[in-house]
C-alpha cells in the first residue's frame, strides 16, 4: 500500500487572491473571494477562512452572487465551467460546462436564466467577446450550457473592462481608446472613442469602467490617472463627459456606492480615493494601504467596501473610509531576493514580503504570522522608483539573532546596509541591535552565521561575502561601559580575500571549525579560529554557484555546484575530489536534520530533483520533471513530528519537508499523502463550529420578534403562528415577570425546555419544505430574503432527522418535489 504511493507535487501557500473581484454576501457577514482554483469564504468580523470550495480545475476568474437567490454563488473558471454553489454549506449544486475559457462572469437580475461571460473569439487570438450563456434547467449536477449568444464583440479580457448599467438596461465595455455602450432593449450600440494621441503626456487609454446604479452615468478610468464621467450617451453625438483627476498613475479599479453618491477609485499609489457627488473638489483619501489596489468591491448595504491588493491582501474598509481589518495571504513579491529561510524559532518560512518587510509565513496554518519592518522607511508607491529592499536574510541557529542586508540600486554605487536584530523575549519580536552602513563596497552576495547550537553566545560569528572581492567576519563585542544602553554590538573582526576574485558564497561546517568561501572558480577553506587559509578546491571551468558542507556522518565532504553544470564532492581529509556528476544544478539545499542533500537541476525546460548523500555518488531519490517552471529556491522545513512513512524510498522526507519556489512565484512541496487527507480536516472542523448558534436564548428571542413582524404579511403561515402562540405564554411569562417574583429556576426549567421542543418540531417541518421548493424551482420568494443566516444553518442540520417522517401529510405537488430531492446527492450530509 505504501510503496504504491508516488510522491506528488502539491501547491501550497494559497492561490493568488486577486483573481477576481471579491463579493460580499447579502448580509455583509461573509466575504467571498476567488483564490487560485478555489473560492474562499471569509468571515468579515473574524477574518477567518470559513470555507474553501474546490472543484474547478483551473483559476477561478469570476464570482457573482445568484441574483435570484442570495445564498447561491456562480463562479467561472478558465477550465470552461460555471459552477453554482451553496456557499453556506460549501457544496456545489450545479456545474455548467461551456467548453471554452471563461475570463469574466457577470450576472443580471433582469436576465432570467442566463449569465454573461467573456470568452475568447474562436479562430482569432487576443480578441474576446461578451456572450450570454443560457443556463439550462435540468436534473442532475453536471449540465451542458451550449446556448451562447454574442452580446458584444471586441471587448477587453479583464473583468474590469465591462460593466452593466442601471437595472441591466445597457452594458458598457472599454478597450484601448474606445467605449462601447449596448442598449439591450433598443438593441442599439453606441461607440465613443478618445483621441489616441498622447496629449500633454497623458495616455487616454481606458483601464476600467463602472456604471452608476441609479442614473445613466458611466465612470471610466484611464491609464494617465484620469476618471471620466460619461452622460447622455444615448445620443451618438451629444454625449458629454467630465473628468476627475487625482491619480498620477493608472486607475486600477472604480466602484460606485449602492446609492451612487460616492465613487471609489484606487490605483498604484495604494490610496483609496472617495469622490462625493461626482465633483472633483470633494474627495476623501485613505492613504498607505500597503500595495497597489487591484479591485474594489462594495457590500450591498453600503456599510463596507473591500479592496484587493496585488500582494495577496484583502482590506476591509468601513463606509466612513476607516480601515477596518485586513486578510493577508502569502505575499508573492516579484523577486524573492532573500531566498527561502526557515525561522528556527517558529519554523515559519521567511522571505521578502511587502516592500522592505520580511514576512513570516506559517505553513501549517497557511497564514502570515507577522511582518517585520526591516527598512523602516516610507515606501513611495510610484512606478519606476528604485527603493531600498531586502536582499539577504540569515538566522542564527537558535533564532536569537537575525541579520538582514538591504540595498538600493544606484547608478554609481549601491546603498548597502547590514542590520543585526536581537530577539527580545519580553516583546516577542526582533529588536534592532546594530546597523552597519556600507558593510561592503559592492553588492553582498552571501551571508551566514556560524551554527554552533548550544554554545551560541560567544562563538557567534557572521560572515558576509561581497563583490568587492573580500569576505568579512563580524563578531559580537561586549561593551564594557556599564552605563551603555546595550551590552553587545557587532563589529568587523577580519577581512579576507583571495587573489582579488569576487567572493560569491560562504558556508560554515557543521561544527563551525571551518569556513568555506567560494571566489569565482575556487573554493577556499579557512580555519574559523585563526582565519588561516587551509586549502582550496576548484573544478574549472565555471564559477562556483553553490557550496555546502555535508552533515553528521558526511561532515568530511564539501559539495559544490558550478556554472558549467558540474556537481562536485571534495573530501576535506584527503583534499581530493571524491566524485563529480554532470548536472546543471540550480539549487543545492542540505537538510539540517539529516545528511541528505537535495539538488534541483534545470535542463531543457524541466526541473528535476535529486536527493543524495555525499558519501555515495548514487542518488537516493530522483524525480525527473518535477515541474515545468524553473525552480529558484528551496528549503527544508523541519516537521513537528517525524512522518511515519514506511517506504524506504522516502526516508529522506521523514524529518523535514522540502518546499520550493518556482519562477512563477508558486510555493510547492512534496507530499506522499493523497489530496483528500490533506484538505478535509480543517474544513470539516470549521463547518461544525460555524453552525453553532450564538446563544440559544438570543436565537429564541430573535425568532419571536421576526415572527411577529411577519404576521401581518404572511397569512399562509398563520397555522404555524397559532401553534407558537400556545407555546409562547410560558416564555412570555418568563421574560416579562420581574425577576424577584419568579419561582426558582429549577421549577421554570422544564416549562421552558418544553416550550422550546414543541415550537421547533412544528416549525421546521414546514419551513424545510419551503426551502426545498425554493431551491429547486428558483422562484422568487421575498420573505426568504429576510431570513437570517443562523436560521438557515439550523434548518440545514435538521434535514437529516426529518427526512424519514415527511411522507404522509404532504400534498401532491410537494410529493413531486420530494421525489426530486431524493434524486439529489446527499452524500455531503455524511460530512456532518
Amino acid at each position: 500500500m505504501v510503496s504504491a504511493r508516488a510522491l506528488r507535487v502539491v501547491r501550497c501557500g494559497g492561490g493568488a487572491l486577486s483573481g477576481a473581484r471579491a463579493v460580499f454576501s447579502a448580509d455583509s457577514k461573509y466575504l467571498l473571494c476567488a483564490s487560485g482554483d478555489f473560492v474562499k469564504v471569509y468571515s468579515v468580523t473574524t477574518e477567518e477562512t470559513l470555507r474553501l470550495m474546490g472543484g474547478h480545475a483551473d483559476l477561478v476568474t469570476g464570482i457573482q452572487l445568484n441574483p435570484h437567490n442570495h445564498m447561491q454563488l456562480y463562479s467561472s473558471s478558465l477550465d470552461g465551467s460555471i459552477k453554482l454553489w451553496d456557499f453556506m454549506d460549501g457544496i456545489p449544486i450545479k456545474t455548467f460546462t461551456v467548453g471554452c475559457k471563461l475570463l469574466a462572469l457577470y450576472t443580471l437580475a433582469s436576465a432570467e436564466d442566463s449569465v454573461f461571460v467573456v470568452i475568447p473569439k474562436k479562430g482569432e487570438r487576443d480578441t474576446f467577446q461578451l456572450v450570454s450563456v443560457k443556463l439550462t434547467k435540468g436534473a442532475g449536477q453536471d449540465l451542458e450550457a451550449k446556448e451562447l449568444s454574442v452580446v458584444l464583440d471586441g471587448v477587453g479580457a479583464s473583468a474590469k473592462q465591462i460593466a452593466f448599467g442601471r437595472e441591466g438596461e445597457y452594458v458598457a465595455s472599454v478597450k484601448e481608446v474606445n467605449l462601447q455602450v449596448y442598449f439591450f432593449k433598443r438593441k442599439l450600440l453606441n461607440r465613443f472613442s478618445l483621441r489616441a494621441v498622447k496629449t500633454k503626456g497623458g495616455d487616454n487609454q481606458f483601464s476600467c469602467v463602472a456604471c452608476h446604479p441609479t442614473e445613466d452615468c458611466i465612470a471610466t478610468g484611464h491609464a494617465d490617472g484620469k476618471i471620466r464621467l460619461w452622460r447622455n450617451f444615448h445620443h451618438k453625438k451629444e454625449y458629454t463627459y467630465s473628468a476627475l483627476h487625482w491619480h498620477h498613475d493608472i486607475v486600477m479599479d472604480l466602484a460606485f456606492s449602492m446609492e451612487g453618491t460616492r465613487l471609489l477609485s484606487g490605483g498604484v499609489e495604494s490610496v483609496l480615493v472617495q469622490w462625493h457627488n461626482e465633483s472633483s473638489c470633494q474627495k476623501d483619501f485613505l492613504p498607505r494601504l500597503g500595495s497597489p489596489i487591484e479591485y474594489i468591491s462594495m457590500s450591498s448595504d453600503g456599510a463596507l467596501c473591500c479592496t484587493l491588493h496585488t500582494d495577496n491582501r484583502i482590506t476591509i474598509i468601513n463606509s466612513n473610509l476607516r480601515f477596518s481589518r485586513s486578510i493577508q495571504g502569502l505575499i508573492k513579491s516579484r523577486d524573492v531576493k532573500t531566498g527561502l529561510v526557515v525561522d528556527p524559532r517558529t519554523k515559519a518560512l521567511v522571505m521578502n514580503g511587502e516592500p522592505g518587510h520580511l514576512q513570516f509565513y506559517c505553513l501549517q496554518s497557511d497564514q502570515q504570522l507577522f511582518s517585520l519592518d526591516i527598512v523602516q522607511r516610507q515606501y513611495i508607491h510610484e512606478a519606476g522608483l528604485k527603493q531600498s529592499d531586502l536582499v539577504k536574510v540569515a538566522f542564527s541557529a537558535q533564532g536569537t539573532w537575525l541579520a538582514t542586508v538591504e540595498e538600493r540600486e544606484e547608478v554609481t554605487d549601491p546603498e548597502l546596509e547590514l542590520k543585526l536584530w536581537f530577539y527580545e523575549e519580553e516583546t516577542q519580536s526582533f529588536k534592532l541591535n546594530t546597523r552597519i552602513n556600507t558593510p561592503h563596497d559592492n553588492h553582498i552576495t552571501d551571508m551566514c552565521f556560524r551554527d554552533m547550537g548550544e554554545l551560541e553566545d560567544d562563538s557567534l560569528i557572521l560572515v558576509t561575502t561581497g563583490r568587492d572581492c573580500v569576505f568579512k567576519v563580524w563578531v559580537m563585542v561586549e561593551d564594557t561601559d556599564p552605563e551603555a544602553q546595550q551590552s553587545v554590538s557587532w563589529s568587523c573582526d577580519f577581512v579576507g580575500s583571495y587573489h582579488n576574485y569576487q567572493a560569491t558564497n560562504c558556508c560554515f561546517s557543521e561544527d563551525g571549525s571551518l569556513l568555506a568561501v567560494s571566489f569565482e572558480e575556487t573554493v577556499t577553506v579557512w580555519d574559523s579560529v585563526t582565519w588561516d587559509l587551509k586549502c582550496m578546491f576548484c573544478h574549472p571551468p565555471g564559477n562556483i554557484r553553490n557550496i555546502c558542507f555535508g552533515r553528521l556522518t558526511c561532515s568530511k565532504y564539501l559539495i559544490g555546484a558550478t556554472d558549467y553544470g558540474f556537481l562536485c564532492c571534495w573530501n576535506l581529509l584527503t583534499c581530493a575530489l571524491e566524485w563529480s556528476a554532470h548536472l546543471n544544478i540550480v539549487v543545492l539545499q542540505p537538510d539540517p536534520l539529516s545528511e541528505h542533500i537535495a539538488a534541483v537541476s534545470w535542463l531543457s525546460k524541466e526541473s528535476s530533483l535529486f536527493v543524495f548523500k555525499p558519501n555515495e555518488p548514487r542518488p537516493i531519490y530522483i524525480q525527473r520533471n518535477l515541474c515545468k517552471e524553473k525552480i529558484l529556491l528551496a528549503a527544508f522545513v523541519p516537521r513537528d513530528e517525524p512522518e511515519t512513512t514506511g517506504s524506504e524510498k522516502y526516508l529522506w522526507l521523514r524529518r523535514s519537508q522540502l518546499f520550493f519556489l518556482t519562477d512563477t512565484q508558486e510555493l510547492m512541496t512534496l507530499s506522499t499523502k493523497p489530496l483528500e487527507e490533506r484538505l478535509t480536516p480543517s474544513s470539516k472542523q470549521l463547518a461544525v463550529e460555524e453552525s453553532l448558534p450564538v446563544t440559544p436564548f438570543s436565537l429564541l428571542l430573535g425568532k419571536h420578534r421576526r415572527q411577529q413582524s411577519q404576521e401581518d404579511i404572511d397569512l399562509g403561515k398563520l397555522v404555524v403562528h397559532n401553534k407558537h402562540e400556545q407555546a409562547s405564554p410560558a416564555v412570555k411569562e418568563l421574560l416579562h415577570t420581574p425577576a424577584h417574583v419568579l419561582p426558582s429556576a429549577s421549577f421554570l426549567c422544564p416549562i421552558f425546555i418544553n416550550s422550546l421542543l414543541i415550537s421547533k418540531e412544528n416549525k421546521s417541518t414546514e419551513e424545510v419544505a419551503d426551502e426545498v421548493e425554493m431551491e429547486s424551482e428558483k422562484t422568487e420568494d421575498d420573505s426568504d430574503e429576510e431570513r437570517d443566516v443562523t436560521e438557515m444553518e439550523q434548518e440545514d442540520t435538521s434535514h437529516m432527522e426529518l427526512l424519514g417522517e415527511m411522507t404522509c401529510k404532504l400534498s401532491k405537488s410537494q410529493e413531486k418535489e420530494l421525489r426530486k430531492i431524493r434524486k439529489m446527492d446527499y452524500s455531503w450530509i455524511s460530512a456532518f
Partner: protein
Amino acid sequence: MAAYKPVVVQACPKLGEKITQDTLYWRGYKTPVQIKEFGAVSKIDFSPVPPYNYAVTASSRIHIYGRYSQEPIKTFSRFRDAAYSATYRDDGQLLVAGSEDSSIRLFDVSGRAPLRQFDGHTKPVHQVGFLSDKYRIFSGGDDYSTNLWDIPSATEIVSYSEHTDYVRCGCASKVNADVFITGSYDHTVKLFDARTKSSVMTIEHGHPVESVLLFPSGGLLVSAGGRYVKVWDVLKGGQLLVSLKNHHKTVTCLCLNSSGQRLLSGSLDRHVKIYSTTSYKVVHSFNYATSILSLALSPEDETIVVGMTNGVLNVKHRKPEERNEKSQKKRQPAYRTYVKGRTYMPKQEDFCVSKPVKRVLRKYDKLLKSFESSKALDAVLEPPIMLHTPEVTVAVMQELHRRGTLRSALAGRDEKQVNLLLTFVARRVIEPRFTPVLVTVADMITDIYQPVVGQSAIVDKQFLKLQEAIGKEIDYQEELLEVLGMMDTLFATFTEKRDTYLEENKSNGLAETMETNRND
C-alpha cells in the same frame, strides 16, 4: 494599513569623546577665574565647614580665599622662607603649615600670629596634617623622618625614621585616629600606627611618590608617583588593585570628589583626569595651560581649584542648575485636569472609546508626508537645523533623492537660498558621513545653476569655495593614502613569515590592518 514612517536620521557615534553622564556633569562648570599667586601653588586645601573657604599655599604665603572672592580674605605671611602644605583641621578652626625653615606652625583661622610652633625637623617640612582625633599633628620632612606632635603641649610624641629619602606627602585616616600614611621619594608608601614604634605596612610604588590618598572607608589607598596612579587594598595587606597610566608626565596631586565615586589626578602634563572608582576608567579630563602642582575639590563639587607651576590659581565654579522649570510649569495644565479621569475604571456595560494617539511629526516630516519636497527642503535649511543638526538636513536630502524629487526641490531657488545651500554643501561635503549624499547634491546644484553662473557675485564666490574645499579634500586623501602605503610596508616587514603564509590580506584602512595583525 501602515502609518507614515518618519525620516530616519542617521545617528553617527561621534568620534573621540563620547557624551556620557560624566561628561555632562563635569562640563557643567563656568569659565575659570584665574588668580595670580606669588609662586608655584604647592597646596590647596578646602575648609571642611561652610562657607568652605580654601587655603592656598604659594611661596612664603598662605592665602585664604572665600568661595567667590577673587582677593584673599586673609593672609598668613609670617614665614621667612617658603611655606608648605597648609591644611585645615576637621572643624575648620585651626590651620597647620610646614615651612622651608624646618619649623611647623599652627594658626588659628581667625588669628594672625601662630598659636604654636613645633621644632624638631632638621630639614624643610613639606607635609603636615592633623590626625582625625584633632589633637595630634603628623609631619614629614626632607630629613627622611616622620614625626608625630601633640598640639596642647607642642611636643614631639614619636619620630619614625624609616624612609630613606624625602617625605613629600601624607594622609591621615578618617576612621582610625592613630593611623596615617606617608609617601616618600624612596618609592615607598608607609602606613604608621601611632601606637607602635615602627611602620605597620610598606608599599612599593616603584616611583618617587608625589601624592597619597586614603579612601574615606580607609580600605583603599591611592598613590601617585612618576606617570602612575596606583590603587592598593590596605585590608588585603597592601595588594595592588589597579595601576593607572593615563598621564604622560609625573602625576603631582590626587583628590577624591565629594561622593567618593570619582578620583581626580593632576599632572605636570597639564591635564586633570577623572576616574570612576568602580571601573577605574577615565571618564573625563580637563586641560590646563601649564603644569599642575595641586588640586582641590570643594564639598558638593561646587568648585574645582587647580594650582599651577607658574603661580596661577585656576578656579572653576559650577553653573547654577537650570531654572527654566518655572516657565514650563506655566504651560502645563492644572493638576486637576491632569489627573481627571485617570483613576476611572470602566464598568462592564460601558462602551470604551479609545482616544487615538496623536503622533507628533517634525515639520519636514509633515511636508514629506504630503509630498511637498521643495518645502521640506526649505524646512531643513533653516539655520538652527542646518547648523546644529546637519545630519537631519542630510537625511532629508537623501530621502528626497530616494524619492527622485531632489532635483526639483533644489531647482528654482533665488540667490539667497542658493547661497545658503552652497555654504552648507561646501562646509559639510568633506565630512565622511555626509560625503555620498552631498556629492550628489553638489552635482545637481552645479547642473541646475550652471546657466546662471556669472550673474551673481555671491553665488560665484560660493562655487569657488566649494571647489576649493573639494580640492583640499582630494589632496588630503592622497596624502593619507601615501601614509597608508608606507605603513603597510612597515607592517608587512613586521609580520613574521610562516610556512602556510598563503593569504593575501588586503587591508582597506588602518583599523583593519591593526585588526589583522592582532589576529595574526
